């Protein structure tokens, strides 16, 4: 190939470039990379080679002016079992908000939808307000086969050049997007809670909690594209859905590679039915309960307000309640509308998992417990008296008898 060269002495035959090449234009010949004439000089191999063994004459890592070739915001439309993931409307909402912040030129919001039999989701994506759907609907794409999803997504991104790519802060998103970012050798900011466009540079300002939420960091990705981020679930306001909206469909037609994975089964986990991360109301218990059977207080209150049971690590470690209930740094991060912490001191490791709750209510007999510094409302008192009283009054209010 003209212009591109493999330095035979430095090439180790590691094969990374073979996988990086979106056009299957590299082969191994006598344990060295060999560039065939399918090559279009995209430079993916140059970027990926750790040994600097591939050079393109005059090629430099993305000169500044080239950044402007990237335009628009692309949302990775995660889906499972024929439905969009609940995080998708939130990311679309975030993307639409960003779109309005560009002053220099209008931007489009696109959704990248890859899968088998996913065409039916296009309508939903338009209803949420995306301008374009980049659709790859072909047989043989398991929604869990991340290896091929990453490859196909990279191909689409290289071709369509969005300046921003957003994905969900879900298990899949936080596994797939790093894979994509590394293939593209660009930056990725994990689990963002705030995204804005810098009015001057029009760069994406990505803000995320680090150190378990004790500090916030704003991060830029200045000299590589796209700028990529995963978005924490339940933080951004979801886009409103208006059926009947339409947009442009861009059909992608790539050959689907074979996945390395053999997906055997998805096992619905009843112990995970307590889906804390989706719950709107959570009642959590800690060491203050003193005894496993006292979790019945928590369960009862949760039942009354239609909530889910959470716990501190102390309660989990004591074996009072299984680990899936644990909230905090080594447990789940939750963002309910109301979080009621009962008999929980509010150690930072616990706080980081629940600080994002809209309203925090603490019940603790120690007025100096740190939980009160982050609680919006609190009762200082013995939970064994307060909780039954709370249940009684909530019920009597409901039946219209007033609070007496």
């Amino acid at each position, binding site marked *: 190939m003209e212009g591109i060269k493999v330095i035979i002495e430095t090439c180790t035959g*590691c094969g*990374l470039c073979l*996988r990086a090449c979106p056009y299957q234009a590299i082969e191994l010949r006598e344990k060295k990379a060999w560039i065939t004439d399918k090559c279009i000089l995209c430079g993916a191999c140059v970027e990926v080679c*750790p*040994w*600097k063994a591939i050079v393109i004459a005059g090629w430099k890592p993305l000169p500044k002016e080239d950044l402007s070739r990237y335009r628009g915001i692309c949302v990775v439309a995660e889906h499972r079992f024929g439905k969009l993931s609940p995080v998708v409307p939130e990311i679309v909402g975030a993307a639409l908000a960003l779109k309005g912040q560009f002053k220099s030129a209008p931007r489009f919001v696109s959704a990248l939808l890859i899968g088998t039999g996913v065409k039916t989701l296009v309508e939903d994506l338009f209803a949420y307000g995306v301008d374009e759907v980049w659709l790859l609907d072909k047989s043989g794409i398991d929604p869990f086969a991340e*290896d091929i999803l990453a490859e196909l997504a990279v191909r689409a991104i290289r071709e369509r050049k969005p300046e921003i790519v957003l994905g969900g802060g879900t*298990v899949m998103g*936080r*596994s797939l997007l*790093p*894979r994509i*970012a*590394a293939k593209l*050798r660009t*930056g*990725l900011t*994990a*689990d963002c809670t705030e995204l804005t466009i810098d009015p001057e540079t029009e760069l994406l*300002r990505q803000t995320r*909690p*680090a*150190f378990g939420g*004790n*500090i*916030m*960091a*704003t*991060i*830029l990705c*200045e000299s590589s594209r796209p700028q990529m981020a995963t978005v924490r679930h339940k933080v951004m306001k979801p886009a409103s859905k208006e059926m009947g909206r339409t947009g442009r469909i861009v059909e992608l037609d790539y050959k689907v590679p074979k996945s390395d*994975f*053999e997906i*055997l089964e*998805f*096992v*619905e986990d009843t112990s995970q039915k307590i889906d804390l*991360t989706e719950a709107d*109301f959570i009642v959590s218990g800690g060491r203050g309960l003193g005894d496993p059977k006292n979790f019945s207080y928590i369960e009862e209150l949760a039942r009354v*307000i239609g909530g889910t049971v959470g716990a501190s690590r102390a309660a989990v470690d004591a074996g009072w309640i299984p680990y899936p209930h644990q909230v905090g740094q080594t447990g789940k991060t939750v963002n309910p509308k*109301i979080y009621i912490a009962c008999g929980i001191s509010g150690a*930072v*490791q616990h706080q*980081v998992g629940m*600080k994002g709750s809209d309203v925090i209510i603490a019940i603790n007999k120690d007025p100096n417990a740190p939980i009160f*510094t*982050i*609680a*919006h*409302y*609190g*009762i*200082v*008192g013995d939970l064994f008296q*307060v909780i039954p*009283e709370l249940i009684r009054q*909530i*019920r009597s209010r*409901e039946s219209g008898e007033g*609070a007496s």
Partner: protein
Amino acid sequence: MREAPPGGKLPMKVAVCIKQVPGTTEVQVNPDTGTLMREGVEAIINPFDLYALEEGIRLKEKYGGAVTVLSMGPPQVESAIREAISYGADEGVMISDRSFAGSDTLATASTLAATLRILGPFDVILMGRQAIDGDTGQVGPETAEHLGIPHVTEVKMIEGIEGNRITLHRMLEHGYLRLRAPLPILLTVVKEINTPRPASFKGKLRARQVPIKILRAQDLELSPEIVGLSGSPTRVVRVFTPPRPTGGKVFTGEPKEAVENLLRTLEEAGIPLKCRNGS
């Protein structure tokens, strides 16, 4: 890739990547670079990485082989590596060079991948689901991509290995996925996967004596542009402490009265606690 002897044990070459993190969240930030200052804070092994290590030791016990622990960071990561050896790792490698400072996940992953390639090939590479300081969970998948091998995140169980295929349970929202994948593979693990054992007396003795291999930038033959700050596409431009609510309305006194006040205040604020479940 090595073939498993039919029906026999597959000697496993296992690598575990551990990160040393501050044991406290009282962190300080370097105002010039926006990077974290780790000096003077007690350091621990990232809690999730202990599960990765335990799983590595279990693989070795089941299939034979050896566990190599690696950690990238300033010279004090040596203590984390020695601690890992006291739990049962066979050898330790420290990846330390001034030029690695300021690495983001992409640069860290490039560096780890280069190390793994030089020391390997490994059959299984284990990492924690995320580090409790950066909380990104990106280093695992990005390292796998640089190595050109598959990865699976949030692994809660290794069912077994047959020939060159490993069967796994992966946690997902609302359940878990059973899947089979080829070796070599990179896995990130969650707490459910096992209960780490305590250090043995023998392990502690070994940990004190065993030499730790040190790899510098030049040993990895990585070009300077892809490591450290210059190899990091992301740049932290601002670090701040989130505004803390300075405590809210707290009600004291008799439970009955306190509860009445709480419910009234909530209702006035438009967030009534309602009975949502019949009686």
